């Protein structure tokens, strides 16, 4: 019988051994093979053998522990929801105008109980600002989380990849040169320009990725280079700007929630609500990308498409958020990292946790921006890092032992 025929025959009758092996080892193998015959042919039944380190009951114990860990993570996400709601309410209750706690609560569902001036404060100032803070935090952190995964870089966030610089450049063009989309009313000129430039920077990144093969490292380098170029143009504009325009520009780039109104809140809310289900659907694929591109592709993930769509979502989220509130760093970077420390790298937990932590962080920053200096509302972009850093450092130090 030829070797090939032997192979074919044995493949059919599943004889575990067909060639002479060193004795002893062959025997051990035979028992193993018998024990694990069903190993890969499906079925929930554990094979009867005990050749590994763990017995069936131990395996079930491991499985139960795994389920416990997963449940604990969902509880964590749940408590983050509570935290975010509390932070949002805290934001609603702080401000220069003294609004009694109960009246605010009452006024939320029945505006008529408030005096007209209080109604304006609550409904035209406090509520849009609080919602804007939550939405901006959520979108920046979600963008950051997806970006860190698809670029495989813990430093990636909209801010580090030049999105903010480009948005600032767009805003500067509108403020200094009055240059922007024709046909827009003056109030929308600055945000529209900032949006277009921020979106443009990420789309340019996408285009470069498309031409040169989307290597994560290359993308990061391109992003940083684009950011530097935009920063240089921005400096040039600041150099030639009038004093008035310069002041306006500096304030814009510090980031502020004070500009929030119902229109901008609605636009950002739509963007967040539309992109989030897609992010959620990609969560499993993003998780496997955390193991490395080759691994993800061998699991059947179309990494190129995943990256393309994720970059599109990131572009929309970051550009819209930055357009309305200006440059806000830190949240997009730190939100996902804090989330990772709390719920791990599985994106079904990581994405919601990032969204919630980002939102809570922004809301807390908003509270701080209103209460740090009495009577003055500090630009939010200044406060985020100041508020977020202690939290972040605390978590890092607590985790230090694990990673060493």
């Amino acid at each position, binding site marked *: 019988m030829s070797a090939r025929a032997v192979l074919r025959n044995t493949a059919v009758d599943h004889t575990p051994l067909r060639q002479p092996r060193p004795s002893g080892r062959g025997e051990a193998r035979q028992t193993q093979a018998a024990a694990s015959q069903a190993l*890969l042919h499906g079925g929930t039944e554990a094979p009867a053998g005990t050749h590994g380190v763990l017995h069936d009951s131990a395996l079930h114990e491991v499985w139960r522990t795994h389920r416990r860990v997963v449940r604990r993570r969902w509880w964590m996400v749940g408590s983050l929801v509570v935290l975010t709601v509390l932070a949002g309410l805290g934001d609603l209750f702080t401000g220069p105008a003294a609004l009694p706690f109960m009246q605010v609560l009452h006024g939320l569902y029945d505006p008529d109980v408030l005096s007209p001036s209080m109604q304006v404060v609550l409904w035209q100032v406090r509520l849009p600002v609080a919602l804007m803070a939550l939405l901006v935090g959520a979108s920046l952190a979600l963008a950051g989380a997806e970006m860190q995964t698809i670029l495989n870089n813990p430093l990636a966030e909209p801010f580090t990849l030049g999105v903010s610089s480009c948005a600032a450049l767009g805003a500067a063009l509108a403020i200094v040169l009055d240059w922007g989309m024709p046909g827009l009313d003056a109030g929308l000129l600055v945000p529209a320009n900032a949006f277009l430039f921020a979106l443009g920077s990420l789309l340019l990144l996408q285009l470069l990725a498309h031409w040169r093969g989307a290597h994560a490292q290359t993308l990061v380098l391109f992003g940083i280079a684009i950011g530097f170029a935009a920063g240089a143009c921005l400096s040039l504009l600041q150099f030639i700007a009038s004093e008035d325009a310069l002041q306006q520009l500096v304030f814009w780039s510090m980031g502020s929630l004070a500009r929030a109104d119902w229109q901008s809140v609605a636009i950002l809310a739509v963007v967040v609500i539309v992109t989030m289900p897609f992010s959620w659907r990609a969560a499993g694929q993003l998780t496997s990308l955390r*193991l*490395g591109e*080759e691994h993800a592709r061998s699991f059947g993930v179309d990494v190129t498409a995943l990256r393309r769509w994720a970059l599109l979502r990131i572009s929309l989220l970051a550009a819209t958020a930055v357009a309305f509130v200006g440059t806000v760093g830190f949240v997009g970077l730190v939100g996902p990292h804090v989330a990772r420390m709390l719920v791990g790298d599985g994106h079904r937990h990581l994405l919601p946790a990032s969204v919630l932590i980002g939102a809570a962080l922004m809301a807390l920053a908003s509270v701080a921006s209103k209460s740090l200096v009495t009577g003055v509302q500090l630009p939010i972009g200044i406060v985020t890092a100041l508020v977020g850093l202690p939290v972040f450092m605390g978590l890092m130090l607590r985790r230090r032992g694990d990673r060493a």
Partner: protein
Amino acid sequence: MKPPLTLQVRDLAVSYRGHEVLAGLSLPDLFAGELIALAGPNGAGKSTFLKALAGLVRATGWVRIGGEDCLRWSVRERAAHIGFMPQTLPLDTWLTVLEATLSALQGNAVGQRQSDEMRALQVIEHLGIGELALRPLFQLSGGQRQLAALAQAVVRGSPVLLLDEPVSALDLAHQWQVMSVARRLADEGRIVLVVLHDLTLAAQWADRIAILSQRNIHSFGRPADVITDKALKEVWCVQARVRSCEQGRPYVLVDGPAGPPTQHAAPQAPLHGGGEAPAGRDGVLHYG
């Protein structure tokens, strides 16, 4: 009835930016139940060959798995038929070994969470890392991560398995364990291709060995026919002695680079069991 599982490769070529990495490689048909070892010097194209089959690099040629043109398969179809373990280790993540293995199953139907999880756990346990199942990957050693990667490749139970240097970071016991798992998977009716640098290991476990050299096949056949002094000299440029153990399988002792001996040649003495012992009367260094 489904056609019998075969893997047929003819004229497989891969170019990367105008640079030819694999030049029209052809193999005799491979059959279910076979464990094939791929060997060859660095840069010979072994990894590229596996990546081309796994669809990670663009390739041209005629490749059939069970009669189907696998180069035309979608990413998902390919993942269902082919388990691929890349040479690169999984990255430092917070994902546990179990989570990582589960993410390799994501193409499967949703809603069978528990059976998926138990199955992943069984695979992990059979690779001897059951105790590490809930540890995050960044806490594992290189060898442990390599076993985790193997679990990811194996868990889908695909009929064709491509393992790119699965034992490069492993100690002897785990090398044996991985090879015995590969052998068992082949015995269950799969086709398993394994890239190995250790020819003795390849000869010990493989049914047939393909030696790749300079972007193409140098020789293909049973271990004893392929692993010869001549092949070692031609392909690896080393002077080596091929011996045969009692079962007729060859093993390899490398003496040094082929050609005139250089200063860097490995010491011959310990192998011959004579000559000048480097230290100690019995040729063994004793400490303390």
